[in-house]
């Protein structure tokens, strides 16, 4: 007897449709799975057999062959268990075959027949189910809410194999578990608040500019001045994700297996340790492995102690910073992942950390040169804002905070709305992503501003690319102040906040 069931396997961020074919014929009892199954899928044999028996069904004592089609796609993970079990039951006439044609079965089985909740990539499978034109997705109740985010898809929650048989036979699905606390709404502020930051007003202002325009930025300052503290408060002033963005982010995190709750509503904030490798950062260590930049998509990637990161890892950031995506090509697979994030980096101004603080720095010229070299180059070239923190500012623990996250966030949202309105037909939504052509079109300078820019260039302070960065930031500052025209003070502030690989007046001559 032959039976067929449908399911999906995950490959990178993509899903592939898999048809599970089970054939049972007379012969010595055996259970063979063919079709590029990985270890986890091959082990399904034992799980499926135990689950079927422990659910009170009969496991046919004949020769069983399961084929996972298409044969050239590697199948990964235990998500195929449920489909395999149902196909075996159908092939052994314990279940009608027709419903299997219109259902997608996705889930891992426990030995007692319950469907486990730990399945990764549910959202992606749900999207794929809808696209494939299949009617119903059958999965564990804990995952049903996540799949339910996709509109127009019928989701059936099943607690165990027995329930799955009942659902396939036309019966009702199991109830969903109680919903967790109501979804966080857009106005809720998440994580630590900006009002915890006392003093450092200059840095806070700069960070609001960075958040408003999604500008890549570098925090630089002696140890203990609050670089990390400030960075951690960035998510609290970023606007929440739009629905399509949220679905995209949820899908990525669902596949990566670090999803908490159902829909991600706050922007991801990824802060990998500086020992991370290039593969860890951009992905591709093994098939389907996504890196931190992909997980930071639509959010923030925070690199603390930037100068400690390995050179190859930092170099690997160039493509995502430029294109908003990573293309990973390996010997056996290739994939393109979305990776549009706001880069935040933090660093000490020199190896000992105290450069600029009078007399405290113990570094010699060679140390400083080495430190600069590590930071300089193509990466710094893509950083729009340099936020300098100083110890004097941090000392004033009784100083007043500049603003609260709520207020800052309102400012940021307003500035982003202006940007979105202006850049509506350009295919980008924030100033940081404007290219040279858009800059020309959307950044109108006042005469004095133009003059200041020209003078700075004559003085040798700005490269052509540096000028673009200054214009982007100036545009954002004008947006924050609610002005359509960019004034001299906007350009002046942007100039004071610019990052340069090497200062004209620094020690190295």
């Amino acid at each position: 007897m032959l039976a067929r069931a449908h399911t999906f396997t995950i490959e990178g961020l993509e899903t592939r449709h898999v048809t599970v074919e089970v054939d049972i014929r007379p012969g010595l009892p055996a259970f063979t799975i063919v079709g590029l199954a990985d270890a986890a899928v091959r082990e399904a044999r034992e799980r499926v057999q135990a689950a079927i028996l422990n659910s009170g069904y009969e496991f046919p004592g004949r020769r069983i062959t399961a084929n996972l089609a298409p044969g050239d796609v590697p199948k990964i993970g235990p998500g195929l268990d449920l489909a395999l079990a149902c196909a075996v039951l159908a092939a052994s006439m314990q279940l009608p075959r027709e419903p299997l044609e219109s259902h997608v079965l996705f889930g891992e089985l426990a030995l007692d027949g319950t469907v486990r909740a730990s399945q990764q990539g549910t959202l992606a499978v749900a999207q794929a189910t809808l696209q494939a034109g299949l009617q119903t997705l059958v999965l564990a109740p804990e995952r049903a809410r996540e799949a339910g985010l996709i509109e127009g898809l019928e989701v059936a929650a099943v607690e165990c194999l027995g329930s799955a048989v009942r659902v396939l036979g036309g019966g009702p699905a199991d109830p969903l578990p109680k919903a967790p606390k109501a979804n966080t709404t857009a106005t809720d502020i998440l994580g630590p608040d900006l009002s915890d930051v006392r003093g450092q007003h200059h840095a806070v202002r700069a960070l609001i500019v960075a958040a408003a325009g999604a500008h890549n930025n570098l925090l630089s300052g002696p140890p203990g001045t609050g670089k990390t503290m400030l960075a951690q408060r960035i998510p609290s002033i970023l606007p929440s994700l739009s629905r399509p963005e949220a679905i995209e982010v949820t899908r990525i995190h669902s596949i990566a297996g670090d999803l908490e709750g159902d829909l991600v509503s706050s922007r991801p904030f990824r802060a990998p340790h500086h020992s991370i490798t290039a593969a860890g950062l951009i992905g591709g260590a093994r098939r389907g492995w996504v890196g931190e930049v992909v997980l930071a998509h639509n959010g923030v990637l925070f690199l603390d102690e930037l100068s400690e990161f390995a050179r190859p890892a930092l170099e690997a950031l160039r493509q995502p910073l430029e294109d908003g995506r990573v293309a990973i090509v390996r010997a056996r697979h290739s994939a393109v992942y979305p990776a549009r994030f706001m880069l935040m980096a933090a660093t000490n101004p020199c190896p000992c950390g105290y450069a600029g603080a009078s007399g405290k720095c113990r570094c010699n010229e060679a140390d400083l040169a080495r430190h600069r070299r590590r930071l300089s180059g193509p990466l710094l070239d893509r950083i729009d804002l340099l936020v300098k923190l100083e110890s004097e500012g941090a000392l004033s623990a009784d100083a007043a905070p500049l603003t609260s996250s709520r207020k800052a966030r309102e400012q940021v949202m307003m500035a982003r709305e202006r940007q979105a309105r202006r850049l509506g037909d350009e295919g980008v939504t924030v100033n940081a992503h404007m290219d040279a052509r858009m800059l020309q079109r959307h950044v109108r300078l006042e005469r004095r501003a133009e003059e200041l820019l020209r003078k700075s260039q004559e003085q040798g302070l700005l490269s052509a690319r540096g000028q673009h960065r200054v214009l982007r930031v100036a545009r954002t500052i004008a947006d924050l102040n609610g002005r359509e025209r960019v004034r001299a003070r906007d350009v002046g502030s942007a100039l004071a906040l610019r990052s340069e690989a090497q200062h004209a007046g620094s020690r190295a001559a």
Partner: protein
Amino acid sequence: MTGACGACLRRSWLLAALSAGLAYQARDRERLLELLALGDEDLVQAIGGRRRSELQERYARFTPEEVRLTADVETICRHHRGYPRALTQMSDGAPRMLYVSGTAQRLAAQGSEPAVAIVGSRRATDYGMEMARSLARGLAASGVTVAGGLSDGIAVAALAGALEAGGRTLTVMDAGLDVACPARRRTLFQRARMTGCAVAELPCGARSRNWCYTARERIVTGLAELTIVVEADESPGELLGAHVAQALGRTVAAVPGRVTSPVSRGTHALLMEGAALVRGPEDALDLLYRGNPPRSVDAAGTPKRSSTKRQSQQLEPRLQMTLEQVGAGRDTPAKLTAGSADAGEVLLALSELEAMGLLTRGDGGRYVPRESLAGRAPL
């Protein structure tokens, strides 16, 4: 007019051969200077040690061909007319000959001009670096030769400043001319040789040892009529230039800093001892000519106002105020914007001043004035 006689070549060869012995004596600066003033035989006797007889033998057999010269290096000794006059006026301690890169002819031409040595800390602050730069820039623009080494900190800033103004420079190296320059200074060194001279006492291939710093400072200060210490702490190493200049009887001047800054301790000590106080190129020129008009400054080299100076006289009040605040130590955007209601205006002023070349950004986000306020009218 150029070239070196055999005896003087032999002297430089001997110094290189005795380098290890001299290194032993480097801790005692007075003694080292005395040793360098000794005649050849006495020097071998004094520090030849066990190699004494071997050295004496090689000394006797020495031929000028033993001294290797690389392509662009010339020699000049005190027996030739092109030898810097300032060095011949020195007492016994002067080097007998110099290896010159950047043509000995140019060195001879520069010998008749006044020279100022700018020395100081190897780990200077941004303030010190900018002061050294602007001093050198002003002096070079006034036709004064700027002398110095190629060590980190003040010396390099001074050299860069003088080159910015397109002035004459005299760079003294502490090892053979072909090996003395560290890789990170190669570009600067090349520029210095294109327009000025680089000189060394030791033959090509000779490596630098600790005694060479003192020996170099003696040439630097010996070449200059005036030695200006820009920033130095109280360690003997940082004040080396000043002490050698004093030992040679040259005028020593110092640029004051903040009394709380450790790298200004040495300069303030010098000022207490009676060194002249220098606030900018004008003060240095006053010291150099002692009220007499420059003798040898030709039409092209007459002191001219730099373009930045002219701008500063027409500064708007708000810019002038910001500039003065930065000069007074409120030098980071955070400090400047702290009390101000309008941070944007302050940042604008900073950027405008930077675009005018009156401010520059240093380490740690500090702004540093690019020249002294000494010559500028108060608001």
